[in-house]
């Protein structure tokens, strides 16, 4: 893990609890993410997912621990780490296109105006936005279109790592479906690494190579790392037919429904690190076996 593309080492976050003491969101959390991986993180509200993401983005400093990308500790935000925020991340006084060129101009300062615009239009087109819609202000776009602009802005900058905080949280199921496919389309064929927060189990299974499961806070842990053993390209309607789909889904539901609470609130010994257990569920290996095979490997 120490030589992963992104390595999170002994990350600890504490906040004052408002009563003079402090409470620990998570402590000594450690995990790694490989280059080109698509990782989703699932956990109950308030467990600290956004806190982790803001630290990865460099927008906030952890109480303890380091995050290394390509072997170097990160400090502060960087154009190498693009962020799609859940809300309000578009600048409302700029048109959709200008919101994207804003980012591209910052990323490629020596490009010509025309180059910047062409590049931005190309990425808006990839997420299904073209024509006069790109000249409208965010307030004149639907929620789905706004989130598309936001995704286009992040991908147009071609960051090494993309951080998405519940990008589809505010969207209806139909729009979600379309944008999820667009997201996969933009991501596949790049070597970009994606770290995404979501509340939606099916979305996580559709998108991710690996799902990190967090226990409830305070003192949350990244307890498991579940591999999604469903081959790509994945299509929403087809993957539900795959023998692993429901096995994985059940495992996730079990975790979020029961074990996330049971495992919560454990304090740790001084200097102990908490790495997630790797869980690999693959029924295609042994289709006769009724029980899903659980191979718990300590990483």
């Amino acid at each position, binding site marked *: 893990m120490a030589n992963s593309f992104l390595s999170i080492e002994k990350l600890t976050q504490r906040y004052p609890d408002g009563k003079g003491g402090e409470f620990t969101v998570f402590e000594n959390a450690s995990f790694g993410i490989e280059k080109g991986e698509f990782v989703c993180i699932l956990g109950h509200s308030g467990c600290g997912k956004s806190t982790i993401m803001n630290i990865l983005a460099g*927008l906030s400093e952890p109480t303890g621990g380091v995050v290394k990308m390509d072997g170097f500790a990160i400090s502060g935000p960087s154009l190498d*780490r*693009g962020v799609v925020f859940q809300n309000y991340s578009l600048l409302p006084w700029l048109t959709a296109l200008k919101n994207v060129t804003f980012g591209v101009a*910052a990323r490629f300062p020596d490009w010509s105006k025309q180059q910047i615009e062409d590049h931005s239009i190309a990425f808006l087109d990839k997420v299904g936005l073209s024509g006069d819609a790109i000249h409208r202000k965010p307030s004149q776009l639907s929620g789905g279109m706004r989130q598309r602009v936001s995704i286009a802005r992040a991908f147009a900058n071609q960051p090494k790592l993309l951080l998405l905080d519940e990008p589809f949280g505010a969207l209806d199921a139909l729009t979600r479906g379309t944008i999820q496919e667009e997201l996969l389309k933009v991501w596949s064929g790049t070597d970009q690494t994606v770290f995404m927060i979501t509340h939606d189990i099916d979305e996580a299974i559709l998108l991710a190579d690996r799902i990190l499961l967090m226990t409830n806070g305070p003192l949350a842990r990244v307890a498991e790392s579940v591999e999604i053993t469903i081959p790509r390209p994945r299509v929403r309607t087809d993957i539900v037919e795959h023998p692993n789909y429901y096995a994985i889904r059940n495992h996730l539901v079990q975790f979020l429904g029961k074990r996330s609470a049971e495992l919560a609130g454990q304090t740790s010994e001084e200097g102990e690190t908490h790495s997630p257990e790797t869980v690999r569920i693959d029924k295609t290996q042994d289709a006769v076996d009724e029980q899903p095979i659980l191979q718990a490997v300590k990483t």
Partner: protein
Amino acid sequence: MELLSENKRAAIWSIALLFVGLFVWEISISAQTINTGELTEYELLTGAGTAKAGVPPPSEVAVKAWQELSNPFYDAGPNDKGIGIQIGYSIYRVLTGYFLAAIIAIPLGFLIGMSSVAYKALNPFIQVLRPISPLAWMPLALFIIQDSEASAIFVIFICSIWPMLLNTAFGVAGVRIDWVNVARTHELGAFKTAFTVVLPAAAPTIVTGMRISIGIAWLVIVAAEMLVGGTGIGYYVWNEWNNLDLTSVIFSILMIGVVGMLLDAAFGLLQRRVAYVE
């Protein structure tokens, strides 16, 4: 009537009200002049009768307006200048004082809005200085600056600075953290962030402050010019009052209103340009 749009109906009402108002004014003046009758010797001496009889009907004001506006820029000595020249002087003073205030208030407002230390450090001064009537500065300004023109400009400066300063600070402090984070994740420097994110985000609030300021400045310039004299619309009103030329007084009051309205409308236009919907 129902075929007409709301705006058209409102316009008809406005015009009707205008004519009713003018009519009542005209009627009451002619009734008054008839009633004046015999004046006692005392009334003649104090000029009471003359002043009363001097309130002109709208028709006279209209004639006066026509004369003045057909030749607004004549200059026949210190006490006889066209209305255009007088208003020009006033606008020049207002704009000079106003822009000096803006140059200081907007950057300072940025500082106060961005840094809570700066806010806390400067707030006591602002709270004490802000409620002071701008005209209260006049004697001090005249004494220190020794120049009536510059003193008037200073008074405009001091009265326009507060709304701009406070609104800028308020607008800048209220910029959504998400937008600032967008700037941070794009590695924009402090100046780039200030100009491409904070300024447009706070612009509606800042321009509102600027609009309030220009309104106050225009209110204050009339009083300031009455005090310092020489030129300007405020001096003109006072001078015509001394000449007991009430027709000119009423005409210039109207002109003050019209210019104030135009200044406000200009900022209204700017406000619409920088507005955005979240």
